[in-house]
């Protein structure tokens, strides 16, 4: 461990907070329909889009209508993306398939399509050997934007339900979608794709080039329109890499500085939304309480991961390596990490992308030490509420807040209330379902995969036997259920002998199970969250009295952390024991 390593972690937390607060206020204005400085420029395209879509943005939707719009829009997006990916060769006329790649098999495409539409970006394929530039741009990039916008829209709808004073309207999905894209995602993506290019991220439509190295070996270098996709991949907590090694690739993430920028891009909207929530509820302290909860859990995870990775792995020590800091090298477990990021930049990046549903990686999670690798597991086990995905994080933690309020109410023997609204049986049932469907999907799919020989086909050769095989299987379905998309990347659902997909085939079992896992665990919680919003929207607000449990003080922060940890531990502990904890507690090699 080094001083600069610690400075990276804590400096990051400070910069993040400083950026998220103003963005949160701005987003509150965007979703409350207040004027912002951007109206003058963006008002015209906004109104144009409403006209083309033939929607009336002022028309409110109740939770069922809002949910229906979410589902239909996602379905239309799913169908178009599947079509684009399966007809990859047809689009060669655009000149955007310079390598002449064929389409991936149907089962892999099913998985990929479901993955992008659900904001997961789980990837069984490698970008530079599978996808044409056209597919990456017109297919995947678009879903990076709109799946993120959908998540934010649902979170905003839930906020409106919680603060709603009368009626059943949660706002208008089409308005929330259009405003999220135009006012939030697109401007930030434009600015930061240019920032990334200025630091070395590439953006070109040229074919791959062949270099002849200094010793005469030739090297084919894959290129592409990377920066435009990279910015939204992080900003929308999507995480699907342009290249197979994702943000470890120097063309995606060229320097230590871009690594910092990329981490900020991932967390800035999830963090800002918490402040947005404080603004929209009219009580900023509610936002600060949730922010504190998230930040404490986040820093805890980052510290554990950094210490574990700086210590080094049993395999390194068995091979005789010295993993301490020496002059000119920061030591630690550099297996599966790139030099420019170092231990702190790699450990922090992977905490950032696993607390959110981003799932981009800049190092090989599978090569993390047992404890360092247990951190992403723990983050996923907390169901993406520590900042979480854009929107998904906020609506998920609000469900936990309601649960904590309920448990707190039971402990003091009062009817639980949140922001003046009574939390009753119907809301708690929906909340509990909303919280439990994700773990249920993850555990069910993992059990199916480890118990069947079809599932075990996907396990990588380097992991065969031992706890690593269980870890990578469990992680695969946990990650897909949480719509995260990071991977212990040895686990595969795609066999591709050569680049370009000729002669390749999918592992149907893993592709379909994972695809269904993602779809179920995305849309079921969305519907439960909207139902809770609908149920709360109509409730009358009673003034806070002496006996009202406060939800904006340190006691509540502790209670909330307790509830999140408890739910995660109770659901996942047995499974975690079999994989990462065994790997972490023993120095034994398998």
């Amino acid at each position, binding site marked *: 461990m080094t001083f600069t390593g610690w400075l990276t972690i804590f400096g990051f937390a400070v910069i993040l907070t400083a950026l998220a607060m103003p963005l949160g206020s701005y987003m509150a204005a965007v979703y409350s329909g207040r004027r912002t400085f951007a109206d003058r420029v963006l008002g015209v395209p906004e109104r144009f889009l409403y006209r083309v879509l033939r929607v009336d943005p002022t028309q409110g939707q109740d939770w069922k209508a809002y949910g229906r719009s979410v589902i239909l829009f996602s379905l239309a997006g799913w169908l178009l993306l599947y079509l684009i990916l399966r007809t990859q060769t047809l689009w060669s006329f655009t000149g955007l398939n310079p390598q002449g790649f064929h389409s991936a098999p149907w089962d892999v495409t099913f998985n990929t399509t479901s993955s992008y539409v659900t904001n997961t970006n789980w990837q069984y394929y490698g970008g530079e050997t599978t996808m044409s530039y056209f597919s990456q741009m017109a297919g995947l990039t678009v879903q990076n934007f709109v799946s993120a916008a959908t998540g934010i829209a649902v979170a905003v709808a839930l906020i409106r339900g919680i603060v709603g004073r009368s009626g059943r309207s949660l706002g208008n999905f089409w308005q929330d979608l259009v405003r999220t894209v135009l006012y939030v995602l697109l401007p930030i993506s434009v600015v930061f794709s240019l920032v990334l290019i200025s630091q070395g991220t590439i953006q*070109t439509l040229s074919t791959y080039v062949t270099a002849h*190295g200094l010793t005469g070996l030739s*090297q084919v270098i894959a290129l592409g329109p990377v920066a435009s996709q990279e910015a939204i991949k992080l900003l929308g907590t999507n995480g699907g890499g342009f290249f197979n090694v994702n943000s*470890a690739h120097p063309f995606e993430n060229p320097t230590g500085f871009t690594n910092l920028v990329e981490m900020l891009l991932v967390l800035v909207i999830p963090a800002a939304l918490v402040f947005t929530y404080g603004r929209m509820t009219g009580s900023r302290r509610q936002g600060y309480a949730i922010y504190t909860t998230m930040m404490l859990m986040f820093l805890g995870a980052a510290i554990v991961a950094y210490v574990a990775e700086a210590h080094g792995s049993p395999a390194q020590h068995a091979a005789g390596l010295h993993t301490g800091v020496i002059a000119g090298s920061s030591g630690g477990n550099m297996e599966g990490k790139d030099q420019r990021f170092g231990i702190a930049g790699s450990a922090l990046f992977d905490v950032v992308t696993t607390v959110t549903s981003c799932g981009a990686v800049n190092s090989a999670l599978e090569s993390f030490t047992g404890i360092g690798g247990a951190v992403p597991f723990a983050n996923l086990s907390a169901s993406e509420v520590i900042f979480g995905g854009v929107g998904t994080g906020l609506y998920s933690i609000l469900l936990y807040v309601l649960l904590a309020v309920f448990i707190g109410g039971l402990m003091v023997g009062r009817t639980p209330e949140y922001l003046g609204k009574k939390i009753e049986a119907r809301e708690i049932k929906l909340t509990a379902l909303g919280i439990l469907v994700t773990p249920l999907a993850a555990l069910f799919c993992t059990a199916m995969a480890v118990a069947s020989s079809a599932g075990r086909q996907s396990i990588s050769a380097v992991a065969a036997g031992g706890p690593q095989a269980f870890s990578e299987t469990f992680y695969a379905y946990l990650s897909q259920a949480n719509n995260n998309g990071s991977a212990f990347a040895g686990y595969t659902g795609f066999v591709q002998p050569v680049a370009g997909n000729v002669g390749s085939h999918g592992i149907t079992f893993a592709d379909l199970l994972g695809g269904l896992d993602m779809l179920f665990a995305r849309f079921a919680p969305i519907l439960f969250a909207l139902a809770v919003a609908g149920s709360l929207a109509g409730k009358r607000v009673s003034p806070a009295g002496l006996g009202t449990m406060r939800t904006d003080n340190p006691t509540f922060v502790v209670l909330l952390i307790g509830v999140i940890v408890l739910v995660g531990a109770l659901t996942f502990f047995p499974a975690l024991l079999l994989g990462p904890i065994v790997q972490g507690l023993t120095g034994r090699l398998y």
Partner: protein
Amino acid sequence: MGIKREILTSVVAVLVLTLLLGVAYPLAITGIGQIAFPGNANGQLVYRHGRLVGSDLIGQSFATPVIDPRTGRIQTHDGIPVTTPDPRYFQTRPSGTTPPDNAAATTFANYGPNSRITERAIAANIRAYISLNGPYYPGGLTAARVPVDAADTSASGIDPDISIANADIQAHRVATVRHLPLAEVLRLVRTYTGGRGLGFVGNRTVNVLELNLALDRVSGGNR
């Protein structure tokens, strides 16, 4: 809204947003990027005597093919040419791609922390590093003195950088083989050592391709 109208809206929304976000946006960024930062946008490609030799950002293998003495042809193993590190050049980190430093099909090695396979891979990397650099290093090298980045596989498989400790050890070999004073090689190492982002993020790194190109300018390259 009726369900039919809603379906129509959904389809139109997906198509319109595809045009905006999937076509207009990336093409606009490509245009601006190509004009404002042409070098970066195209991958910081490096040419020497008009020939493309690589990219500053992409690690490459500084090895030469092994010729089979019996057949006179390049030896292969599973269809991949067998290579041996060229001692005149600084060497990049171990790579998990096939063949090493494959910039057209990147992949992690995915070596687990508690795996015998990992231990064997690391041990092999240590042996290779010691046999390449040990004879030139004063006092010789042991496993405990090998910097971790020289023995551990990189993430991208095309890591363009090595640690300063790694470069300093290799400098002894390169200086001897090229008949250059050690101080001069170390000076070049310092020249191509990058700082940390904002002064504190990431590691200080030595860019191997830039360093090797500079060496060739000083003492003559292959061709």
